[in-house]
Every structure is written in structure tokens, then in C-alpha cells.
């Protein structure tokens, strides 16, 4: 270990070369590179089908609810718990939405709000046992999984209920309309893409300037430019492709806003920091004045709301609620978070990792379906990828 104190360490030493920086931060970028590699692979073997605008849109729509739930699951897992019930909550809330709109005649807005509240209440009910009664979350949410799977069946009477009002369907099948009135090309999509790139670059420059001012170790400037440039190109290219089809799906915008929000909450806010401390060492967190019980409770409430939202999106996408909706989603969501580098013992994990993990699973699902690989072997391959990703992460961490 370096035994020098702060004043002895020359600043010049804190400048690192490209290679060193990449080496030390490999874990941060490793997952992203793997995702890009997987995408490239499927792009080649599917003869370019993967990145066709239509398929790209589908990819987003198919994975939005997994990504959204992964955000909540990340917090739950970082806090040192697990939630197995999210798939059942998706089914139940979807069913509830269907009954409310189709059978009981509520309007979509009331329904949406009510369903999100119900999701939150379900999360609260489970979080209560976990946080205050100290029942292991695995057990509580396993119970929840059975309860809500059963309640979904009971609620829907074993039948599929639909279709939904058009306004509600737009939640999943709608696109951001083009305010510039482009013909066959959605300028709004490109504009939004450019705007978010500008925002990203502005914020990363600002934070870099701040870091330099305080003499924090920063990425070499070249690498910094390269990273931001690459990100800008990817986002613009993506938006361009989407623009040539129907523009940006509503769901994508919801998802992007949520990702940004959760990334901010986990990185920059006191509540985010406290969740990491809680998962890293609950006793130390408690003795530092953190209300660990309430925080645990809130992460489950949050998970419930997001699962409710995912339930609405999934129902809207199918335009019908079925008793089988949401079956097995919890596995995809949990896998996404772990592929994204979260630790099963809590305290470690990133929003960006979870999102990338979700897309790794999503791209593989999608790519293998295009290739015509049966659902049987798809599962085998997904399982192996999960194990491989996490083993690699464990290995890297040991080094």
C-alpha cells in the first residue's frame, strides 16, 4: 500500500495514461463493450436485421418493462435484498388495469394512477415484513409471488380481458409525433437525440472541469473526448435510425427519463448513498444514524410502483391482460441486475450496469429469435451467459 499522506503525493502522479486508466476502469466499461460486441455479433449473423429501424423499435418495446423494473430491482439488490414477486405484480396490475377500464369503465388516467398506487401498496405490504419484521425478503416476496399470481387469476376469472382504449394503448404503441411535420422522417426524434447528446456533453464537461479544479484523478482528455464522441455518435445514429421509421416510442422516452432519474438518485443524492451504505454494512449504517428500516421499506415501495408501471406498459403492449402476463419476468429482471455487476450480498451495483444488463438479455432474446433458435435453447444460452458474466465479474473483482 502507498503510505504517503496527501500532502506528500505529487499531483503530477495523479495523471494517468490511457492504458492505465482503461485497465483500472475496465470493469466500468467491460459490460458496455460486451453489449456492443453482442450487438455486433447478432448484427452480422442476422445479416443486418438486428439494427433495422423496425427491429430496433421492437427491441426497445420488448425490453422497456424489464429495464424499468431493473431500476427498482437494482435498489432492492443494492440494499441487500431480492424481490421475486415483480413478475406477479406485473400480471396483477395489468389485470387490474384491464378490469378497471374494460369492465368497470374507468378512464385511462384514473386507472394509471390507481394502478401505480396499488403497485406501491403491494411493495409496501411486502417491504413492511422485510424491513420491520426482518423476515428474509426471499421468503416474503416468494409468498408475494404466489399470492399475486393467484389473485391475478381470480381477478381476471381465468380469462383474457381487453382490448383497451386507444389512449391507453399509446403508452406502449405510441410514438412521439413529429412537430416538424417531416414526411417519412421524424425530425423530432433526431432533435431529441441531439438535445440529449448536448445535455450529456454539457454535464460531463462541467463535471470534468469541476474535477480538474479539485485535482481529482480524471480520465485522460483524449479518452474523455473519445468516450463522449462515441456516445454522441451512438445516440445520434440510434435516433436517426428510429427517425427513419416512426420516431421515438413513448415508452423509450419514459424509460430514458427514469434511467436518468435513477442514475441521479443513486449517484448524487443522500438517499441513494444511504441505500448503498445500508447494503454494504447495515449495522454500520444504522449506527451512523441512517433509518435502515424505513429505507428498506421505501426501496420495496419503489419497486412496487415500478413493477406496477411495467405491468401497465406490458398490458398496453399486448392490448389485453392475460393471467399469464408477467410470468417469469422476475428472473429476467434479476438476471439483468446481476449481469450488470451488482453484488448478491448488497452494497454494490450501478444503474447503468443494470440497464446494460437488461439490454444484453434483450438483444440476445431478440437476436436468437431472429435466427430462429427455439425457446428451449434460448433459455439454455441465457442461463450460461448469466453465469459467465457474473463469474467474470467475480474473477475481476478478486484480481
Amino acid at each position, binding site marked *: *500500500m*502507498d*503510505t*504517503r*499522506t*496527501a*500532502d506528500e*503525493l505529487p499531483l503530477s502522479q*495523479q495523471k494517468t495514461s490511457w492504458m492505465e486508466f482503461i485497465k483500472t476502469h475496465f470493469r466500468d466499461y467491460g459490460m458496455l463493450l460486451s453489449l456492443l460486441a453482442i450487438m455486433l455479433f447478432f448484427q452480422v449473423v442476422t445479416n443486418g436485421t438486428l439494427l433495422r429501424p423496425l427491429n430496433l423499435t421492437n427491441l426497445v418495446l420488448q425490453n422497456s418493462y424489464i429495464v424499468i423494473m431493473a431500476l427498482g430491482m437494482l435498489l432492492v439488490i443494492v440494499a441487500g435484498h431480492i424481490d421475486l414477486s415483480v413478475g406477479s405484480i406485473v400480471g396483477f396490475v395489468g389485470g387490474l388495469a384491464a378490469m378497471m377500464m374494460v369492465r368497470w369503465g374507468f378512464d385511462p388516467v384514473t386507472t394509471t394512477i390507481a394502478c401505480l398506487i396499488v403497485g406501491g401498496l403491494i411493495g409496501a405490504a411486502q417491504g413492511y415484513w422485510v424491513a420491520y419484521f426482518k423476515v428474509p425478503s426471499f421468503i416474503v416476496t416468494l409468498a408475494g409471488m404466489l399470492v399475486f399470481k393467484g389473485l391475478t387469476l381470480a381477478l381476471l376469472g381465468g380469462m383474457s380481458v381487453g382490448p383497451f382504449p386507444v389512449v391507453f394503448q399509446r403508452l406502449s404503441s405510441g410514438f412521439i409525433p413529429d412537430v416538424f411535420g417531416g414526411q417519412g422522417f421524424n425530425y423530432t426524434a433526431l432533435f431529441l437525440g441531439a438535445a440529449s447528446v448536448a445535455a450529456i456533453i454539457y454535464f460531463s464537461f462541467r*463535471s470534468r472541469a*469541476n*474535477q480538474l*479544479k*479539485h485535482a*481529482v*484523478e480524471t480520465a485522460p482528455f483524449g479518452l474523455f473526448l473519445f468516450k463522449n464522441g462515441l456516445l454522441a455518435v451512438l445516440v445520434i445514429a440510434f435516433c436517426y435510425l428510429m427517425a427513419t421509421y416512426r420516431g421515438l416510442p413513448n415508452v423509450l422516452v419514459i424509460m430514458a427519463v427514469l434511467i436518468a432519474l435513477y442514475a441521479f438518485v443513486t449517484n*448524487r*443524492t*443522500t*438517499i441513494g*448513498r*444511504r441505500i*448503498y*451504505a445500508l447494503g*454494504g*454494512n447495515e*449495522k*454500520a*449504517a*444504522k*449506527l*451512523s*444514524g*441512517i*433509518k435502515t428500516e424505513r429505507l428498506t421499506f421505501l426501496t420495496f415501495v419503489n419497486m412496487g410502483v415500478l413493477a406496477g408501471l411495467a405491468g401497465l406498459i406490458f398490458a398496453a403492449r399486448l392490448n389485453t391482460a392475460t393471467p399469464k402476463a408477467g410470468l417469469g419476468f422476475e428472473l429476467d429482471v434479476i438476471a439483468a441486475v446481476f449481469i450488470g455487476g451488482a*453484488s448478491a450480498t448488497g*452494497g*454494490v451495483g450501478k444503474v447503468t450496469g443494470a440497464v446494460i444488463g437488461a439490454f444484453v438479455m434483450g438483444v440476445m432474446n431478440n437476436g436468437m429469435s431472429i435466427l430462429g433458435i427455439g425457446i428451449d435453447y434460448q433459455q439454455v444460452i441465457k442461463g450460461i451467459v448469466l453465469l459467465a458474466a457474473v463469474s467474470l465479474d467475480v474473477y475481476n473483482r478478486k484480481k
Partner: protein
Amino acid sequence: MNAILEMRGITKTFPGVKALDDVNITVQAGEIHALVGENGAGKSTLMKVLSGVYPHGSYSGSIIYEGEERRFRGIADSEALGIIIIHQELALVPLLSIAENIFLGNEQAKYGVIDWSAAFARTKELLKVVGLNESPETLVTNLGVGKQQLVEIAKALSKKVKLLILDEPTASLNEKDSDALLNLLLQFKAQGISSILISHKLNEISKVADSITVLRDGGTVETLDCRAEPVGEDRIIRGMVGRTMEDRYPQRNPKIGETIFQVENWSAYHPIHAHVQVVKNVNLNIRRGEIVGIAGLMGAGRTEFAMSLFGRSYGQNISGRVLLHGREIDVSTVEKAVSNGIAYATEDRKTYGLVLAEDIRKNVTLANLDGVSKRLVIDDMRELSVANDYRAKMRIRSPSVFQETVNLSGGNQQKVVLSKWLFSDPEILILDEPTRGIDVGAKYEIYTIINRLADAGKGVLMISSEMPELLGMCDRIYVMNEGALIAELGVAEASQEKIMHAIVKSGRR
């Protein structure tokens, strides 16, 4: 005399660091060989090389044991030859019985079927040897730390130990248990078992050791022979720190003011056994700029008292009043206690003090995140400058504040814990065993920090099992036994004898 063990020119490098640099150590057959050095001097690494945790090939140099060069591939190899290491963190399974623990991995079995009566009989014999009067069926979790330590030793004996290595065996033992353990080592010595004893408690070492090897910064400094003439503590310290330590406790001119903190009739009951009163009617006070100690044996209820006071973190049915500047304050949750100006630095840094996977920066601000944030949003740069500030002020040794605390030495970890509590800006700081497991040099630094706090007008309540430390640091000492304060001594009149006397007298009642 013949050597049972000779380690020659051991060099072990980790990426970027040379942990051991040409270390030589020779242990004679049937001696107690002490290994001393500051934290990070390489003692544990050396023992890991010896026991095969770092297998042959991962280090350079040679190990000659019982006259032959050995190349251990793992712990199993070294254990087979009778080299048994007992780690600082005990490796017992709490919910298994003593017998099950002793024969774990070495079961008294035929064809995989355990012969329980043989195991119990053998356990009884072993327990008798180590002087532990417990049934072999007792679960380890029901034993105190001292007794668990004895179980570990019994376990080592069951493996036909020839060279016993003890890493800080008395760190969490009270004096009585420590003495018992040291006597046991002397007994083993008489039976021809050699031991290597790693300890920070130099008085114990000068009591039992036949020779002492001093490590500093990964190298051997010297080997002292205690048989010819006794080696004093000061002599050992000089070797460890490379300088004479004139005074182990920094000078301070106490400027004591009015009473700022009072605890009245504080009582608490055991969290599970509701009828057991663990803290009994404690009344104490602390004045401005005063360092007040609580002495007592392990299990006297000192930590329980402090934790029940600090946001009811221990026990149930807690009653009593806490007054700060003459006004009663609410300490019913940790958050309230902290915001009312109380801080408690725990005795167990790793379990209760630090989030080990997180860096210094995040640990320092954990108890006062509001101090670096605006409307729930953390100001990264302010946090960083706070952390850097404490790193420099407390002389925390690390490449940067982004170092994960798990990689810090005990002394530096303790400095991080102290930084955390200082940043919460308390009026009263309760320090529970602030220097446990910390080397001499770092202890001095911690003492200096404590003195600085008192000089800044804070009140310090210091719990310690090391009486010299209390006598050296405190202005006033309370003595606790069985949950009650039984004596109060000004530092001028206090002595180890008086404290022990008070404890023994109250125990007899």
C-alpha cells in the same frame, strides 16, 4: 539447541507492493517466539506464507521445517505437519457444538459415519487440557470470546500440533482470560510444543516470550533473545518504530470547565432475556474538555451501556435521562442522538463502524451527509474536500480518499471512523476501545487526536480494557462491573491495583 523452523530470505510481492523483503526468522524447538511489528509490518503475510495460504512459488525464499525444506501448496499441507495457525478472527461455526467445531474437517468417523461417543470423549480430554469447563455439546455461540479462543486451541491440539501460531490471541480478551491463555502457552512449552505469538500487547510478550523477532516495513529488524536477560517493553518499541518512544501518551494540560453532559439513572435490559438487567442505574457526568474513562472487565456492560445510550442501539426497556448543558435531550434514535451532539465510535470497526466496500470519502461523510448536500443532492466536490481535509488532518495513510476502507490497516480504519464522527461535530464523543488492534505508532496518533478534541472543549467518554491506556489518557475514571458503576477515581489517585481492587470487591458482594 535445534531449530524447528527456519524461514530464510522470504520475499513476497503483491502487485505494486513488496509486503515482505528478505525476512529471516528462526524458531527453536520448544520455545515461545514472539513476532512483533506495527500494523502493516508484514506479520500476517509472513504467517500466511508459512501456513501455505500463499503457496510455494508465490514467494521467494525457503522454509525449513523439522530439518527439511518444505513446499506447502496449501493449509492442508502445513497442518499435516503440525503447523496450526489460529487467526485473529476466530474460525468457528457459531451454531455447531464445541465437539463438532473441534473435529470439523477431521471428524472422528469410519466410512463417513461419525462416532459421536469417541468425538465427545476426545473433546472432553482436550477441553481439560486447555482448562475449559464446558460440555462438548455446548454451542459455540453460547461461549464468550475467551472461551471460544480456548476451543480454537483445543482444536489445534486435536490435530497433533507441533508449531502453534497465534495471531493476536488476546486482543479481545480481558486480563484474566489473557493470563489463562498465556499460562496455557507456557504449559505447552513445557510439553515441547513451540509457538509463534503475534501480539500488540508488549507486556504479555515480555512475560512469556523466549525470543522476539521484530518486523518493520516488511523486513526483519532484529531478533531479541529474552533468555539471557529480560527485554523491556521500551526496547521492543524501539525496534518496532525505529525510534525510542519517550512517552506513550502525549502530554496534555487539561482545561476542564463546567459539567456539560449528565446521564441519570440509566438502565437497560438484555434484548432477548427481558428480565436480565444489563445496565444498572448508571449515573455519570462529563465536564467540558474532560476525558472520562470507563474501566472494567470484558462483559462488564460498558459497550452495552454506551450503545443503549446511543439511540437505543442495544437492549430494551431502557430508562433514564440524558442531559446536555443541563437540558434533557432525546437520544431515542441514533439520528436524534447524533443531531443532539452525541457520537459513538464503536469497538468493532469492521462490523459496526465502516462500510468496508466503500471508500474513505463515503465513510467519512456517512453520519453527516446533510453537511455536504443541498436539498438531498450531494455536492461531490464539497464532500471530496471534506474527506481530503480529514485525510490530511488525521494523517490517514492511503493513496487517496478513493481507497476502499477494507484495504486500510487497523489504525487507518480507526482514523476513518473517528473522522466520520468528528465531521458530525459532536459535543460528546464516546470512544469504545479506540485503539484495539492498533500498533504503537498509530495509537499515539489516535491519543493525540483525542487530546485535541478535549482541548477543543468537547467531552470525551473513553471505554477501554487496557488500564494503562485509561490511566495515561483520562482525567477521571469510572469503574464498571456487572452493569453498574462501582467506583469513581480521579486520575491522581487511580492505579491498576485500585481499579482491580474495586472490581474484585464488588464481585464478592
